[in-house]
């Protein structure tokens, strides 16, 4: 006991005395905005999830005072979630980084230095690493939360300047499998439709997504649609965990983790057997693929015929019946419009691309595509994973404008646009995220720039990779607004501007680009990333004596960093690099984006067209200008995507394949992880908003009541989760959420005992290289009764 009885009585007496002396504990009312006078409202998009809610920041005397939704925006119609309403409190937060910090050794304490010194050090270290090992010894690891201008500019310097394809970003951890799925099934990345399909859909197929928690504003639209039409709209939720999303579902199929591929094949089987497919659509627009071979409908039919509903129910763990599978398939195929929604449940898997393909298969098979109210819609986790990283060239194998690095013609186009010598961009793709951090473990990468993300916490099996990041012979630069666990492994920490303190574009789930303009001044010496990159690149050019690096920043010299500089970068990217690509953004200039209440959906080749809001449905003649210009025949749908030379949709023959790690007698439980509504990723922002922190001060693990009873675990008990890789101790929530035999933990907590990525597995999808965060095997043990815990934030 922390306090003896004697001390306790003394304290009680002291408190009485204090009260007579007139001390009073007042409630902090500083955060309550009540006066509405003199507030100017500045439009932008939300800093947090991938929905892309349009918000307005209220500014009074140069200080932020609140956020509100924009009712006219076609993403959120004015609604916000608690995170979205409160993130402005990060802006003036006392924990903000305001000076560049440096330390020679990672065991030293940080010292404040000037920007000039900081940029010299950054350039010296990158130059040194580059001289030693060339482009392969340097790396950039970015984020789906960086602005498009930032991602684009960073990769330009890395590829054009330093001749390195080691350009990666955290979307590799969340969206890579969706990219792989779209490219292999539809021939072009990103969804065909968008959110507007929700209000026209008659069936929702939600698989591997807790939309209610992770995309709450979008969930509201789905819920509204269902509640307004309770009899004609069906909601199907397919998830091993009963979540908030399941609560509006007509049918919830709770399968054993990792068996969903079999379930999706069984649905295809029912659709074919009961002749619910769209034969005309299949004849006109579909190719069947098995590995590298082209096969036919009969081969596909034979492949899925093995997945009879009866057999699959057994594979999935017998928690639903074969008739449930049949009915689900019928609802899916027969509805007037079916929208599928998924996120990490399918993507963060060793078979992530395959799982994506199998969902697309169902849509192609039934023709539930390209019409209003039907789409195969992958929800993005981060606000700019689509816009910045997938479109802007932020992954090791792609150049801006959805161009594969390995393709010489594509490289030449980019080199020409940048005015750098031909052959400057190396032809070999760089290291993908997990390979990049493995290379850091072996010190093959000598200098890495980590921008706006915290891999120390967010990589799976992070204990392993954190050893590399702690190495003294790997120089780490981080750019961030707060200290994170990653800044604790850095040598140089550069303070950057937060959202609304700089200008730039975010591109959300539905191909929509939205501009956020600078509305307030950044604190201290914080600078926008685009300025940091430009200044750093200039020094780099001098130190390496390489005029090509200077050429990369030449169009941007002398521009003011708050608005003119990002605008010039956006212009170069959108006009030169997206022209005639499938993400044609030439019409979405800053002038147009500033006028729009909610942004522009690409393709938008002209300003005039962009002002209408852009393309709601890709590939449809009359609705997508590129379907008309790229038209090769008189069919209404034109699949002009870059990856399918036959201009068809591809149905893939994909078999059930197990996850990397399956529970056994030693590690008998499945572990899955996820996000909670109040917190954003590693909590460095939301943890600093008192309202949000108080709601969820620390992570907990959800355990099925039946399992809890077997293990003797009561609500609030401290539970140890052990995998082959690491251990966590966190409080238990006994809850009919996860299916029996599975536990579910939240991953936002920064405390070393509750950082669940120490436990998760780093197996990767062979195609997309995305790790299997969602499934691993653990042992669960009660260690004690409830313990008082304190929230933990580094810095």
């Amino acid at each position, binding site marked *: 006991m922390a306090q003896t009885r004697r001390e*306790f009585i003394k304290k009680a007496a002291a408190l009485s005395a204090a009260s007579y002396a*007139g001390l009073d504990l007042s409630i902090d009312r500083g955060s309550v905005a009540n006066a509405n006078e003199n507030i100017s409202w500045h439009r932008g998009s939300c800093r947090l999830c991938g929905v892309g809610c349009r918000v307005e920041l209220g500014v009074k005397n140069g200080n932020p005072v609140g956020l509100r939704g924009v009712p006219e925006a076609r993403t959120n119609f004015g*609604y*916000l979630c608690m995170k979205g309403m409160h993130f402005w409190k990060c802006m003036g937060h006392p924990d903000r980084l305001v000076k560049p910090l440096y330390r020679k050794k990672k065991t030293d304490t940080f010292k404040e230095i000037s920007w000039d010194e900081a940029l010299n050090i950054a350039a010296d270290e990158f130059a040194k690493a580059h001289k030693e090992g060339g482009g392969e010894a340097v790396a950039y690891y970015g984020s789906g939360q960086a602005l498009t201008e930032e991602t684009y500019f960073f990769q330009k310097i890395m590829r054009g300047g330093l001749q390195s394809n080691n350009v990666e970003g955290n979307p590799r951890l969340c969206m890579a499998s969706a990219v792989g799925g779209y490219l292999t099934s539809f021939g072009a990345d990103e969804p065909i439709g968008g959110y507007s399909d929700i209000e026209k859909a008659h069936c929702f197929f939600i698989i591997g997504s807790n939309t209610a928690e992770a995309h709450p504003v979008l969930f509201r639209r789905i819920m509204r649609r269902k509640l307004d039409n309770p009899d004609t709209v069906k909601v199907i939720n397919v998830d091993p965990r009963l979540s*908030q999303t399941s609560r509006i579902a007509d049918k919830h199929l709770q399968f054993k983790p990792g068996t969903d591929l079999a379930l999706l094949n069984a649905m295809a089987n029912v659709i074919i057997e009961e002749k619910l497919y769209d034969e005309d659509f299949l004849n006109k627009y579909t190719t069947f693929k098995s590995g590298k071979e082209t096969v036919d409908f009969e081969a596909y039919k034979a492949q899925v015929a093995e997945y009879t509903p009866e057999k699959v129910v057994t594979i999935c763990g017998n928690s639903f019946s074969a008739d449930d599978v049949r009915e689900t398939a019928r609802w899916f195929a027969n509805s007037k419009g079916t929208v599928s929604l998924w996120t990490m449940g399918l993507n963060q898997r060793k078979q992530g691309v395959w799982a994506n393909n199998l969902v697309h298969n169902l849509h192609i098979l039934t023709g539930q595509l390209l019409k209003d109210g039907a789409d195969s819609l992958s929800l993005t986790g981060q606000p700019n994973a689509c816009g910045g990283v997938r479109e802007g060239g932020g992954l090791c194998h792609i150049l801006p404008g959805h161009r594969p690095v390995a393709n010489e013609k594509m490289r030449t186009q980019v080199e020409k646009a940048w005015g750098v010598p031909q052959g400057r961009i190396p032809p070999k793709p760089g290291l993908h995220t997990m390979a990049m951090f493995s290379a850091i473990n072996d010190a093959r990468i000598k200098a890495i720039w980590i921008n706006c993300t915290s891999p120390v916490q967010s990589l799976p099996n992070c204990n392993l990779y954190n050893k590399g990041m702690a190495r003294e012979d790997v120089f780490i630069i981080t750019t961030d607004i707060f200290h994170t666990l990653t800044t604790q492994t850095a040598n140089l920490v550069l303070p950057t501007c937060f959202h609304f303190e700089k200008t730039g574009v975010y591109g959300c789930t539905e191909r929509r680009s939205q501009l956020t303009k600078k509305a307030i001044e950044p604190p201290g010496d914080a600078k926008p990333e685009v300025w940091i990159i430009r200044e750093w690149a200039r020094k780099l050019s001098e130190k390496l004596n390489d005029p090509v690096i200077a050429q990369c920043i030449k169009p941007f010299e002398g521009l003011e960093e708050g608005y003119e500089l990002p605008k010039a970068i956006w212009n170069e990217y959108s006009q030169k690099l997206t022209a005639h690509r499938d993400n044609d953004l030439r019409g979405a200039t800053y002038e147009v984006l500033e006028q729009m209440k909610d942004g522009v959906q690409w393709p938008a080749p002209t300003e005039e067209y962009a002002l209408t809001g852009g393309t709601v449905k890709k590939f449809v003649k009359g609705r997508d200008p590129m379907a008309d210009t790229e038209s090769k025949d008189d069919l209404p749908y034109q699949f002009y995507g870059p990856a399918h030379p036959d201009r068809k949709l591809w149905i893939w023959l994909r078999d059930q394949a197990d996850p990397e790690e399956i529970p056994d007698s030693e590690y008998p439980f499945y572990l899955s992880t996820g996000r909670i509504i109040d917190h954003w990723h590693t909590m460095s922002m939301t943890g600093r908003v008192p309202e949000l922190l108080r709601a969820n001060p620390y992570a907990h693990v959800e355990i099925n009541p039946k399992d809890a009873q077997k293990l003797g675990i009561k*609500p609030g008990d401290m539970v140890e989760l052990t995998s082959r890789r690491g251990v966590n101790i966190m409080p238990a929530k006994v809850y009919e959420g996860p299916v029996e035999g599975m536990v579910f933990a939240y991953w936002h907590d920064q405390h070393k005992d509750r950082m669940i990525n120490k436990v998760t597995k780093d197996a990767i999808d062979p195609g997309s290289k995305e790790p299997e965060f969602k499934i691993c095997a653990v042992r669960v043990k009660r260690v004690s009764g409830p313990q008082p815990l304190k929230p933990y934030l580094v810095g």
Partner: protein
Amino acid sequence: MTGLSPHQAGARFLESPVTKNRLRPPGAVPEEIFPAKCIRCGRCVEVCPYRSIIMLDIRAGIHAGTPLVQVENIPCYLCMKCVDVCPTGSLLRVSQESTRMGLAIIDQFSCAAWQNTALCRTCYDKCPFPEKAIRLDQLKPVILPDHCTGCGLCTNACPVTLANGNKAINIEPLYARDKVTV
């Protein structure tokens, strides 16, 4: 603390400190007999690992020395340690589920979800008995009185604080007002 400032203490000499969000620990007998039954030993205060239970001082008149949980400061986590150590039966040995410290009441005029200002369901997420004691009806929280323990986790977490210090969800000590004597 505001309700207990020194100049008011005299007038409130006999008045129970149990009001909105000011609750007795789990298993407490009704207020009518609590002050007579509790011997002010402070064991419940001492055993509470979360420091949820405080001991009232002399400003609380005849209630000085009795335990109180101020849920908007630190709620009760229902660890049930206090009921085990009470030597007098002022705190009866109840289970987690049968604890009735009070009942959560949602102020629909200030709740962000009910007012449609933001999609908030913090109270639902914090409840130790979700779907039993609280559920969501079209994303708006609704309390189910049969299972609400009055632990105050929801009140504590509620992001809305009103000018008078109340939250958008508050615990009313309904059961403390039960009559037991004739």
